[in-house]
């Protein structure tokens, strides 16, 4: 009896782990989920930059470079995660991403160029203009190609 109980508990635990791993695997393969994660990282990396822009933190070229580089990498990663047919459901991707693919690709490239420029900012005077260009690129793309929150 005690053995069968243990077996039962073990198999139950095992199935839960298996189901969890399967779910995580599904999520990992889902481009909508992956690009969302990448964008979350972009947003996190934006916070230290905003703190500098609103003078909550001192200008520090190393902090700028580190975060801008992360933003650039994640933007590139996200850009590759918009295959045809990956909209709908919980995704905030608008159909215009695919009906106006050239416009979307250009907006993504503009954002990457702005992140590249931000990573190269070494003096404080250039920081706020670089910030406006980078944030403006995010905004331009989000206004056109992202739905309001679901």
């Amino acid at each position: 009896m005690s053995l069968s109980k243990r077996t039962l508990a073990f198999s139950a635990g095992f199935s839960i782990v298996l189901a969890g791993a399967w779910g995580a695997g599904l999520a990992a393969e889902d481009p909508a989920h992956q690009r969302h994660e990448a964008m979350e990282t972009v947003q996190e990396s934006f916070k230290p930059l905003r703190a500098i822009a609103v003078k909550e933190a001192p200008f520090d070229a190393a902090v700028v470079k580190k975060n801008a580089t992360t933003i650039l990498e994640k933007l590139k990663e996200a850009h590759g995660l918009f295959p045809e047919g990956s909209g709908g459901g919980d995704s905030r991707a608008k159909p215009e991403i695919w009906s106006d693919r050239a416009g979307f690709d250009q907006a993504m490239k503009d954002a990457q160029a702005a992140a590249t420029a931000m990573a190269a900012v070494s003096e404080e005077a250039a920081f706020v203009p670089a910030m406006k260009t980078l944030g403006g690129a995010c905004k331009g793309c989000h206004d056109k190609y992202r739905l309001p929150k679901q």
Partner: protein
Amino acid sequence: MKLPSRRAQAAIAFVLAVAAFVFWWLSRPDPLPASAIPVHTPDLANGEVVFHAGSCFACHKPKEGAAQGSLPSGGSPFKTPIGVFYPQNLTPDAETGLGRWSEADFVNAMTRGLSPDGRHYFPAFPYMAYRAMRTSDLLDLRAYLMSLPAVKSVAPRHTLPLLPVARRGVGLWKRLAFARAPYAPAAEGSDSWKRGAYLVNAPGHCGECHTPKSLLMVEDLGRYMAGGPHPGGEGKVPSLRGLVERRKYKDAADLVLALQNGEELGYEDLSSGGMGQIQSNLAQLPEPDVRAIADYLVSLK
């Protein structure tokens, strides 16, 4: 099948005629007479402030790629679940814009939702909010629009089912909608808060999206600024209540930065769903006005 008798036919025709008359009578326009407009010396600078506070350009922008793209010459599609509206040309062109509009024409459009020839505007044009605007602000706004370069631009026809009947039917809806007083904020508060209440509720027309509509398509004031389905049909509009308590913004000063900079400073909630364009308009307001809007909004619990 036998046709109804002549008598029955006459009776049906009579009932239909009466119904048509009642519809026509109840949906008739109710314009303000020109004599109701006070004499006013317009203040162009204030007119420009009102223009940005109302985010007029967000809807009345030209279609993408048009020459003189920074002028409110209209024609850009405004998509809703019932059809696509094409907001009209607000530049002073005589043929296609506001060039020939009198002050009374303008005030009637803004506060009664009526065109100069007495047709009803659909409430996608937010006159329900604008009716709470001060006449002096309306006349300043008109003067500002008339000071812009004239652009010739005809907006395409709205793509709504049964357009002429629907348009006349707006008159019936107005009887219900106008019977309700506009939202009246409390009379007490700092001067900045009062200014904010006016900007948000009258020219700003924030409630048009942020307050859900009741079944009668009027704002459900029990859920004032509580957010709801996006009127464009996709996604949601966030609640503006408890913005600080829910940690959306640290304080009023943080909200000021958000309204002035939007996503340029990483405030990503201020993009998408049309809010990005509203924010770009609000960013052009004088700082004390943005501060007033923030003071009022953070007070909504």
